[in-house]
């Protein structure tokens, strides 16, 4: 099970930003965008074959050219005040056809990510993801936080547009689970003495199973990252994607029965704490619209 580092830069207590795909791809969009804007350079990778089945084979004129695996790459960048490491995983290692990582493979992957972080002197790690909430899609998503210590709670309270998970009012006793590696990494980091914070952008509950991304929430998370790093980030390029997704969502909403639409629109004015009928019914609309097909794998001649 291997880590391949192309270089070992000397970094000063770097902060690590880690992302895998998840609900609405909020975390991965945020991490990838931040990495791109800050022009982080490739640092290394976790070899994929222990975790993933290859996605694609390329055969030309009878010769096997290559197999394509989901990538798991590290990047780094030195800013004036902070050094940064990024880890972006294109897929979560799953067992038994599940959507999100769990089990031994997930634990191994999380530890490998931390191995590199610790080797380079990292003392804090940020992950990101989605917070499924009873919000209206026209509202600006808030950022919900979970941290590994009381000190960090005090810190995240100062972040803009950010609330603690216990303040969302939707979870009994402030308890819940952050599924997949964006959550598991927090636990592994805490166990290994690394501070960890997960910042999750709100996504309307009925959109949590959608096959399209939710960039609006990624924007909220990115705004918080920009504040933490003290850098200006131009997010105008997200406008186009947001506009396209907004159109899709509006077209689905337009087909809601009037009473359902009325109930849903009330979310704009009255914060709700319990899911109503809207959740299940709207999910049916979205499932019907975005039914996914799948093909069996296997070689065929071109």
């Amino acid at each position: 099970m291997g880590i391949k580092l192309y270089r070992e830069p000397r970094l000063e207590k770097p902060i690590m930003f880690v992302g895998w795909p998840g609900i609405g791809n909020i975390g991965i969009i945020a991490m990838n965008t931040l990495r791109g804007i800050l022009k982080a350079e490739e640092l290394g990778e976790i070899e994929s074959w222990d975790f993933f089945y290859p996605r694609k084979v390329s055969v030309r004129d009878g010769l096997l050219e290559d197999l394509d695996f989901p990538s798991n790459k590290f990047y780094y960048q030195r800013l004036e005040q902070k050094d940064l490491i990024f880890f972006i995983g294109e897929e979560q290692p799953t067992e038994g056809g599940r959507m999100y990582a769990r089990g031994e493979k997930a634990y191994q992957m999380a530890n490998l990510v931390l191995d590199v972080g610790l080797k380079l002197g990292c003392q804090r790690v940020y992950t990101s993801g989605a917070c499924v909430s009873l919000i209206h899609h026209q509202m600006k998503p808030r950022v919900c936080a979970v941290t590994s210590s009381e000190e960090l709670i005090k810190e995240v309270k100062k972040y803009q547009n950010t609330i603690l998970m216990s303040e969302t009012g939707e979870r009994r006793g402030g308890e819940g689970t952050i599924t997949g590696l964006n959550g598991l990494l927090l636990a592994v980091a805490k166990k290994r003495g690394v501070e960890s914070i997960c910042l999750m952008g709100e996504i309307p509950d009925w959109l949590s199973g959608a096959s399209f991304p939710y960039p609006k929430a990624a924007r909220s998370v990115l705004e918080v990252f920009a504040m933490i790093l003290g850098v200006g980030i131009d997010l105008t390029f997200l406008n186009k994607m947001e506009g396209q997704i907004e159109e899709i969502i509006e077209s689905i909403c337009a087909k809601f029965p009037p009473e359902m639409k009325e109930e849903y629109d009330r979310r704009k004015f009255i914060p709700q704490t319990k899911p109503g009928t809207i959740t299940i019914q709207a999910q049916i609309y979205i499932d019907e619209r975005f039914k996914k097909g799948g093909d069996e794998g296997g070689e065929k001649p071109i």
Partner: protein
Amino acid sequence: MNGLKKEAMRVEKSPFEIYKTAELHNPSLIVGWQTRDIGQLGYRVIDFLNEKLGGQEIAEIKPLGFFPFGGVRFKDDLVQVPESKFWACERNNLLIFRSDEPEFEDYKFLNSILDFAEDHYQAKELYTLSGTISLIAHTHPRRILTVFNQPELKEMLQGYGLVEMSWEGPPAISSYLLWVARRRGIPGVSLWPEIPFYLATREDPLAIKLTLSFLNRRFNTGLDLGGFDLEIRGQNEKIAQLRRGNAEINKYISLLESGFRLDEEEQLKLAEEIHELLGKGD
């Protein structure tokens, strides 16, 4: 005592159950799969080789860690146990492996196959066997499409009538094994005999015979493949009878014979009819 304990632990951790040591010297490794085995090609070819060349069961890869054990699968009322076995055909210097596809730890599993072949017998090259679905009629001649992992082996097998494949898409486990072999410096080739789509769920004796003919020539095994001619004739006759009594099926096969394509519904209808026909006893 400690040394013994350590040795015992090491043995316990081995992924292999070894029954006996065979007299093989730099053998060729032939690998077939019995999961998603199109036209029963992998199963039948390996069964035939083992039977006719006196293949002896020498080892297996233990299933734990590669296959689920939350219950048991059954098919046609029979309990199915995952199998991953090695046979040795000493006279012809062939190491043969047939297995279900692993459900977990694919990379480790594929390396285990090559570990056994290399560490115990210094296997020199790899041949994988899998059928590929083709939109041809059963009366059409079959070809063996091939993928090599090194140009040298491709060069060496010129003249065997193999057809070079070009393909981009999801890899089957044979391609994955071929890639792992390349990483370890083992030359290999995947053989993909064409199988008409409507024979995919049954058997295709013509493709099986073609594959065995290649192996026969390559390894000078001197196998008598005459028995397959009977099977081929029998299958062709059954389908010809169906065509005589069923104008729709006759039309679909005639279209394929003329090089036309069937739409999805026609393909399904033809596949269902042939599946049912070939499932009946004589």
